[in-house]
């Protein structure tokens, strides 16, 4: 205890030293701080053990027979219905496509309006807070709300992805706008161009590569999200997957999962090529 106290004093006096303080003196308080942080982490994990039911982790071993059976079901994927799986997968991609497209279109004005170098604070602060709201609520929550509002089916999924993705893309778009070189925009201003023209000719060309990159990435992750949205009734492959897991049709579930994984991989490859094409 006394040791920490003296170290604290030494640390407080450090700025008065002429050059860099001796390395041992500087390292000692840092070691104590690290130990304290480690201790705190251990305490928090221990407190969370019970509520998270981590005690059940032993079942992974004691009931390993169940696990093996479960796994063996998945080891023999059943592709007999592959046509309908692929159809549903395409629906899922179409949900993601529309959700992302609408989000990109709306993120352009919202992104520009929430950039601090494009609009005064009394415009970009309210717009940013609205985008925070869109982003803060998970797409699954939006999907549940829209299932109630517009009924079960893919459109609820499109709306959920649209709103959540707008919140994300508008923020990313505005950060790109804030990082532009202002000088070309100034040059365009001196020709007598309007505000909109300054944005079209001076800002958009500078941010377009980043915007496209962000949009393609969101499309990819929205294909994954759209799968999850199917589980809560927003159509697509997710709905089929959830139904077959609930009915203990493990071979079918396994086939569906393989199709999802392949699709996500293919989307990743395609978007990589698209990105190369436009940048």
């Amino acid at each position, binding site marked *: 205890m006394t040791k920490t106290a003296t170290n604290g004093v030494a640390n407080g006096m450090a700025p008065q030293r002429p050059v860099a303080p001796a390395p041992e003196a500087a390292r000692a308080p840092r070691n104590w701080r690290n130990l304290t942080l480690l201790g705190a982490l251990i305490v928090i994990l221990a407190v969370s053990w019970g509520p998270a039911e981590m005690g059940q982790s032993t079942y992974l071993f004691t009931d390993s027979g169940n696990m093996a059976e479960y796994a063996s079901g998945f080891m023999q994927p059943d592709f007999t219905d592959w046509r309908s799986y692929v159809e549903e997968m395409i629906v899922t991609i179409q949900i993601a496509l529309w959700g992302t497209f609408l989000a990109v279109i709306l993120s352009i004005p919202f992104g520009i309006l929430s950039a601090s170098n494009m609009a005064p604070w009394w415009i970009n602060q309210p717009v940013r807070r609205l985008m925070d709201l869109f982003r803060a609520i998970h797409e699954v929550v939006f999907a549940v709300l829209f299932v109630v509002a517009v009924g079960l089916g893919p459109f609820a999924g499109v709306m959920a992805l649209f709103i959540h993705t707008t919140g994300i893309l508008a923020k990313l778009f505005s950060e790109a706008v804030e990082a532009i070189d202002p*000088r*070309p925009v100034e040059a365009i201003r001196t*020709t007598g161009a*309007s505000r909109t*023209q300054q944005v079209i000719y001076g800002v958009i*060309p*500078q941010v377009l590569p980043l915007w496209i990159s962000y949009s393609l990435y969101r499309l990819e992750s929205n294909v994954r999200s759209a799968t999850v949205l199917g589980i809560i009734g927003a159509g697509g492959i997710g709905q089929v997957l959830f139904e077959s897991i609930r009915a203990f049709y493990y071979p079918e579930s396994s086939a569906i999962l393989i199709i999802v994984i392949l699709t996500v991989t293919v989307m990743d490859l395609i978007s990589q090529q698209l990105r190369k094409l436009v940048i």
Partner: protein
Amino acid sequence: MTAISVSNLSKRYGKIRALDDVSLELEHGEMVALIGASGSGKSTLIRHIAGLEAGDGQAGKISVLGEVTQSGGRLNRNRRGAVSVIFQQFNLVDRLSVLTNVLIGNLGRVPRWRGTIGYFHRCERNKAQAALTRVGIPQVAAQRSSTLSGGQQQRAAIARTLVQEARILIADEPISALDPSSARRVMDVLADINTQDNITVLVSLHQVEYARRYCKRTIAMRDGRIVYDGPSTALSNAFLAELYGDASEELVLPDAPAEPMPVMPFGQTSRMAVHHLNA
């Protein structure tokens, strides 16, 4: 006729007086150099005349061709475009083609909707191409402007101002980012625009040699004030030392002659030399 009239213009950035009660007049058809060490207020003055910034206080006023562009710290945005501007860092939009960058000069003149959607008439495209030919780079029209050398970028920027068809051209250190031969080319083009098209040119320069060679009249600034306004021939190295003290070293090339040379642009035709003698 008075091309540019600045009266009692002041501007402060924090504690620094960037412009201190500056007044000046440029007659139509003049080519005037604005010299001064770094931080003397040249760029600030040019940004004010360009309509990019507004001065402090009630006294300051700028008129261009008899129309007020700012007074009492309030900008008249409708008058932007009456003065075309060339910048030290060229300020082209890198990812757009050179031709598009030149066409941007039209934005203040064509109907707003046409400029906004990028619909330019054939004659406007031809004029932009002709402007590129005039500045000596017709072959680069379709290239991205980021692929050009510094000297070519500055000439493309000059082509943009030609398309703008303003009666006044101001240039903020247009050659300080260029190598000597590119710098001479750019100054030749500016001198040619001045004599051929009878466009008033105000050009800020870091080195006094170019002022002596290309401009009959020089305005010298120090600490935000005009300290000399008169014939460039009077600017001997000794006089500069008197005006600027030790800072005069940064204005004079080390190998420059101690006495000014007669006003005679490099590589100009005899017709231009005659013009200078007559004028």
